[in-house]
């Protein structure tokens, strides 16, 4: 019994599964030692508040990445849908619920366009969503005339609303993560998405309607980008032409850090995305707290993204070998 337990424990697997948790702990210890006020409830809440828009966006993107595809237009979807809503509210004085409904419908439409191009027209996901990334931002810049669209003062500070000490957008993003977690783990669609990411041809042989499910992934991704756009806009009180730029790469990094493989079929919404989101936000917030040199920020951001991608690639290279060894061991045991 004891021997079996020893055999099942793999330090390598343990490291791959929990490695970033150790990194996160080390980062927290470092910032806490460098800036005493960092190790506090206020800072912890601030970290989650900073991460909130990206947590929502990443939760949708996860459903695309788990199918083994990618969507790099999420930042532009967040920008265009937010810009349209802000214009409807500020310039055309439409009601807020109507603007929000239009915004979410528009973000679904943009996700559906991505899904159509990638899944139906079979265009390479990177190229297709790079094209729509430019197109969506271009439409947004045209509509706003490349100007800042500020929200009316009556709703400008909604992004700061708190329940007790906790910002409402933190609760909202955690709620979204929970819903997405349930969709991923407790529904047929969630399991089918993972199956497609593992192997499309096997998934199809199993009777999974690959195109339909993958298309749904893109649609959901668009919707979540729109919801994330709402959080982002409320935090800053308006939409600027640069809103959402770089979000796609931060969201991808968040997912990879959280253990969602870029090669598809692997990873979890909870705690995966939460760990990834917190890690990135801790670094960003920590640098603010320690008053780091402005030139350090880009270097650290780039370094984190590189390390997470490298770890993902390494994991994918090592995994099949480990599987073969495990299979051989199982066969030996069975033969005995």
């Amino acid at each position, binding site marked *: 019994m004891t021997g079996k337990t020893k055999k099942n424990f793999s330090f390598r697997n343990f490291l791959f599964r929990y490695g970033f948790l150790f990194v996160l702990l080390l980062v927290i210890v470092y910032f806490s030692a460098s*800036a005493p006020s960092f190790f506090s409830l206020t800072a912890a809440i601030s970290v989650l508040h900073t991460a909130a828009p990206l947590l929502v966006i990443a939760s949708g993107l996860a459903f695309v990445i788990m199918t083994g595809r990618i969507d790099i237009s999420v930042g532009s979807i967040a920008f265009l849908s937010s810009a349209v809503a802000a214009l409807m509210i500020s310039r055309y004085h439409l009601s807020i619920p109507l603007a929000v409904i239009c915004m979410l419908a528009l973000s679904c439409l943009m996700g559906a366009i991505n899904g159509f191009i990638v899944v139906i027209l079979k265009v390479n996901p990177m190229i297709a969503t790079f094209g729509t990334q430019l197109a969506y931002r271009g439409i947004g*810049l045209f509509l706003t005339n490349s100007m*800042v669209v500020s929200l009316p003062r009556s709703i*400008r500070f909604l992004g*700061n609303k708190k329940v007790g000490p906790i910002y409402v957008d933190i609760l909202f993003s955690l709620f979204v993560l929970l819903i997405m977690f349930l969709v991923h783990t407790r529904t047929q669609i969630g399991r089918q998405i993972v199956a497609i990411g593992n192997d499309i041809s096997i998934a199809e042989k199993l009777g999974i309607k690959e195109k339909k499910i993958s298309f749904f992934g893109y649609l959901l991704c668009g919707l979540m980008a729109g919801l994330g756009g709402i959080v982002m806009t409320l935090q*800053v009180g*308006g939409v*600027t*032409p640069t809103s959402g730029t770089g979000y796609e790469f931060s969201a991808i990094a968040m997912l990879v850090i959280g253990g969602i493989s870029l090669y598809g079929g692997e990873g979890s919404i909870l705690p995966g995305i939460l760990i990834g989101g917190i890690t990135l936000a801790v670094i960003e917030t920590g640098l*603010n707290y320690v008053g780091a040199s402005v030139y350090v920020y880009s270097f650290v951001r780039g370094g984190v993204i590189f390390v997470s991608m490298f770890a993902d690639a390494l994991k994918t290279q090592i995994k099949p070998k480990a599987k073969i060894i495990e299979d051989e061991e199982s066969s030996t045991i069975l033969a005995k």
Partner: protein
Amino acid sequence: MKKKIIVTLLVVVVISVFAAFAPAEQEQTVKVCVSWNEKVHSLIQAWQDYMEMYAAELEPETGIKYEWIVNVANGDANLQNNNIQDCINQEVDYIVARAQDSGTIGAAIKAADAAGIPFITFDRASTSGEPTTHVGEDGYLQTRTTAEAFAALLKENGVEGKCIELQGDLLDNTAVLRHNAWKDVEEELGAWTTVAEVPTEWKAEKFYQGALNALQANPDANCIYVASDFAFSSVENALSAVDKLAPTGEENHVWVAADDVNPMGYEAMKAGIIDLGTTWEAYSVSVLFVDTLNKLVKGEAVEKEYLISGRLATPETVDSLEYLYSLDPKYTD
């Protein structure tokens, strides 16, 4: 004889009519490529509008008709250089560019020089190549004006400043000049200590998150310098999150110096949140640019750079400033 007189009179009349309707000077059409690095706020649109408007006003007098070819690089320095190359290929007569990256615009300047096209850098100077001339506002002087007035204001109110500096994008030479001016005045006058420097890359999200984190990390901070107020709602939201959004005179007021007096900054200044700032001029710089361009077209000598200085604005004086684009409803964000 009578016939001769009639013919002579007719000739005189015809010549007079032609003389009256003939243009005083031959009209010259000049193709100008305007390369914007991005259009992140209404100031850039205002610059373009004022340039076109002022040039059109001068047209009857100068006989120079400008044809504007405008492109925007959406914050991408490589795209901007490609856009400028497209202009060179179209054989424009002049190129004016607001650089996304002062350190890489030099490549475009060299390409234009090789094609024999005069190049004017606008608003943001080049650190990587020498253009024909540079037209803009003095970023160093702007923040120096703000910082000196801010030091006087803090001293007047008996405040020992502990300031947060929200910097711009340090790829932008103007942002660097503003940072340098802030540091210089801090050292010279000792009216405040900068407790946190926050890079924003001119992104609203980073203004918000950076300001919020810095305010939480330094609860005793009592002043903020904002390198540009174009997305000031982000700073207001951060102040509001820590219950420090209060106008001058209230107990929890944080002293704020914010440069540019963009529409959002103007609104905050009128509300008493921003205590002072120096304008980043739209109209005057555009006028200066068109005058410089006219000189080049006429073959007159130009200087290496033409810089103007902004005007100090406070809640009391801001409405009295002439040609303030922030007061034009067309540019209200």
